[in-house]
């Protein structure tokens, strides 16, 4: 079976459209009648990653790949990058600005939420060059 792949663009500091890509992914998965708990985990990861890209990224791309047995989310941006990934993985650690908090984000829970809700998370980032989040979700065949 050929994997289904679809990409969505993410615009830097576009807080009005932020989250649309993840809602689109959620709707695609719903249309495939996937388990609703799995859909929720994927949507949360997509949304957190998308918000990070909107807040800290340059323009970016969210790609969902639906394959036999697993779903992959890739969120890549060419923005600020993460200076210290270990710190960013800690609950409550945030580099958000007052503007981000006014939009309801910057709780320091983005990467921790993605780690908890994905089956595999890898973070590649370079200060000043951008960030690439890769997440995998395994589909139970029970």
């Amino acid at each position, binding site marked *: 079976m050929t994997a289904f792949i679809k990409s969505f663009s993410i615009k830097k500091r576009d*807080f*009005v459209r*932020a*989250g*649309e890509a*993840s*809602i689109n992914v*959620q709707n695609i998965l719903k249309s495939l009648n996937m388990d*609703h708990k799995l859909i*929720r985990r994927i*949507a*949360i990861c*997509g*949304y*957190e990653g998308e*918000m990070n890209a909107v807040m800290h990224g340059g323009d970016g791309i969210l790609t969902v790949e639906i394959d036999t047995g697993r779903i992959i989310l890739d969120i890549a941006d060419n923005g600020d990058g993460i200076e210290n990934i270990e710190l960013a993985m800690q609950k409550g650690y945030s580099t958000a600005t007052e503007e981000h*908090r006014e*939009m*309801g*984000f*910057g*709780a*320091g*829970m*983005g990467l*921790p*939420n993605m780690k*908890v809700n994905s089956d595999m998370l890898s973070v590649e980032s370079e200060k000043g060059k951008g960030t690439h989040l890769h997440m995998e979700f395994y589909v139970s065949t029970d």
Partner: protein
Amino acid sequence: MTLSELKDILEASILVGNEHLNREFDKCGASDLMSDILAGLSEGCVLLTGLTTVQAVRTAAVAGVGAIVFVRDKTPPQAVIDLARTEGIPLLTTPFSMFISCGRLHANGITGLSGMR
């Protein structure tokens, strides 16, 4: 309790979602930071927040939140109400503060996201 009972307890007005007045609620999340709601067991909860942007509704849609109540008499822009209608998420507004709203719901048996009281 039903959304209708919750509305009475909070002396709230419905901005959109009158057709969902029979929806049942037993837990509540209260925050202006959406990742705190995404991190919790927020499926089916009522969200109390002062955040009136589209991100409150998108958070609710992603997390499966059953209704949003805006505290301190806040009313969101029309675009937010329209998005909530599309997503099937009722929006209410209460004159009470976050503290008083939480207290009223807690006194009437509503739990936190973890199920604790």
